């Protein structure tokens, strides 16, 4: 018997038509066509560059110099005016970008990752009402972390990791992942009965592979939205933690600027408040646009014409 030949294959299509794998090119090309997503990407890139500039000492280094008067208005010397101490608000805002990236990004990425993995494991092993020991232990961990007052926990971490610059990150990651974890767990409990999971089980794929390749991509919407929320939360919590003696003691951040500005707003000076809020808003907007675009780009069902 003659086996069917792929006669048409080489004739009609250039051979390289199928080269690109994993749809990476596809994601990028979809992203490129998404104007809002591109805007988000541009915003995030600009901020990233700013923070690199700060990191390498090119930008915002004068954040702590108090050479101005109290609450100076915008001027050539101080583009966005000065704060109570006479420090330059613009410099401080720029310098804060680094803090935002360092803390916001690290915390949101890692807590989302941790939440995704542990949540997925828990959800997977929730085989019956009550779950098995994997589910049980992860739930237990979540319960413990959630029940302990945040301040108490953070104080403990601060004490235990005294002076270590990443103590703050650790404290936040360890406490933030539970929310994502619970959401992912619930989502996985739902997804795991779907046909394609069954079919990957039929092949005998190991559980981690099933979870990472087949299950977690279908929770991408939750992961992205949680990551952007963790980002905000991290930036806002950073102030509280610095107040508790954790993390970057000797630095400035948007959160710190917002905290300072509460007093200033009462006194009728809005520069600090507006600047910090605006920077946070823009970066957040960038992240959200990008996250939306990514979600679309990674979802093959959202085709574009």
């Amino acid at each position: 018997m003659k086996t069917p030949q792929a006669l048409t294959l080489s004739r009609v299509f250039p051979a390289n038509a199928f080269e690109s794998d994993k749809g990476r090119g596809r994601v990028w090309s979809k992203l490129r066509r998404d104007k809002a997503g591109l805007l988000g990407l541009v915003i995030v890139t600009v901020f990233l560059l700013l923070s690199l500039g700060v990191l390498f000492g090119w930008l915002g280094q004068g954040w702590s110099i108090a050479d101005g008067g109290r609450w100076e208005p915008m001027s050539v010397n101080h583009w966005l005016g000065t704060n109570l101490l006479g420090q330059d608000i613009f410099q401080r805002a720029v310098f804060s970008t680094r803090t935002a990236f360092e803390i916001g990004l690290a915390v949101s990425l890692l807590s989302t990752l941790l939440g995704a993995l542990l949540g997925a494991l828990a959800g997977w092993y929730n085989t019956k009402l009550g779950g098995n020991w994997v589910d049980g232990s992860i739930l237990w961990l979540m319960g413990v972390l959630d029940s302990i007052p945040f301040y108490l926990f953070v104080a403990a971490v601060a004490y235990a990791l005294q002076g270590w610059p990443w103590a703050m990150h650790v404290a936040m990651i360890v406490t933030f992942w539970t929310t994502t974890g619970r959401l992912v767990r619930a989502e996985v409990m739902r997804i795991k009965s779907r046909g394609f999971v069954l079919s990957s089980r039929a092949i005998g794929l190991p559980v981690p592979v099933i979870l990472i390749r087949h299950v977690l991509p279908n929770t991408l919407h939750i992961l992205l939205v949680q990551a952007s929320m963790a980002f905000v939360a991290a930036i806002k919590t950073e102030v509280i933690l610095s107040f508790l003696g954790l993390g970057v003691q000797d630095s400035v951040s948007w959160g710190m600027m917002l905290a300072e500005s509460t007093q200033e707003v009462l006194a009728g000076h809005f520069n600090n408040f507006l600047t910090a809020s605006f920077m946070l808003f823009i970066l957040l907007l960038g992240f959200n646009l990008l996250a939306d675009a990514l979600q679309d780009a990674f979802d093959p069902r959202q085709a574009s014409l």
Partner: protein
Amino acid sequence: MSDCIFSVRNLSVTLQTGLGLARVVDKISFSLQGGEILGLVGESGCGKSITAAALMGLVLSPQGLVTADQIKLGDKNLTQLDEASLRRVRGSEISMIFQEPLTALDPVFSVGSHLSTVIRRHRGENRRQALRSSVDMLERVGMADADRIMQSYPHQLSGGMRQRVMIAMAMACRPKVLIADEPTTALDVTTQAQVLTQLSELGQSFGTAILLITHDLGVVAQACDRALIMYCGRIVEEAPVKALFGAPTHPYTAGLLAAVPRISTGRAQRVQAIPGLVPHPAALSDGCHFANRCQRADTRCRTLIPNMRSVDGPTNSHLHACHHPLEHSCHAD
């Protein structure tokens, strides 16, 4: 039965594929009369389901582009309706049975709620009546423990049961036009017979016209009045079933008929596939799409699109699109 209640003229659908735009449905036209069952047969991937979705207005602009000169349902031209009016038409005047029932049913609603919602929406019955009608519908399509089924969720049903739930839903609307996309693939033959009977009864009692998409030529022969043969997005032959099975004129139709496996009491006879592959919709050649698989093809076939022509003269009921039609039946046996 000669009133035409649904007519489609020059419907085309263009989709975005990995290889660029592909016109997966290419200027197809047909019409349906009240109570009629029209079979739509064609090679897998030739665009039947897309046609169905396009007729329902379910192909949305980012995914695909639908153009048509006319899709006329009764006195409404669906191409000119806005989404809101289209929505009122959908379900009540035209409804559809989807090909893959598991993903098509809402996983968190029970069968009962699927059915009764549709019944309440389109028949205006109250909750209790609707539940009763739902049970009735289920029994009609041969589902025994209707009580259990009513409370079951889609994932708890077998493939055939899901399919029958979809059929029941579509039938419950008593639409003017029903598009059934391979409704009986997961049914055993006895159940299939029952369902087909129900469908044709629907046509008799409510004048519903049915576009029955199927691969089973046996079903076409038994249940349909007329049939369309589709190949690569185009209709290549349209004929009353008798004529189609008796004297197919398009070589593709003939090939299909030859490939139908039949039960024999003796040793099974091998059937022959049509040689060659279906071309990719994004890379169709000019002329007749079937040309590169057709033994009768010549250069004209490769360059010139054949138009639909009438075979049997003035009655105009048997049409084909072929430059070299078969003159007489090549149907063995």
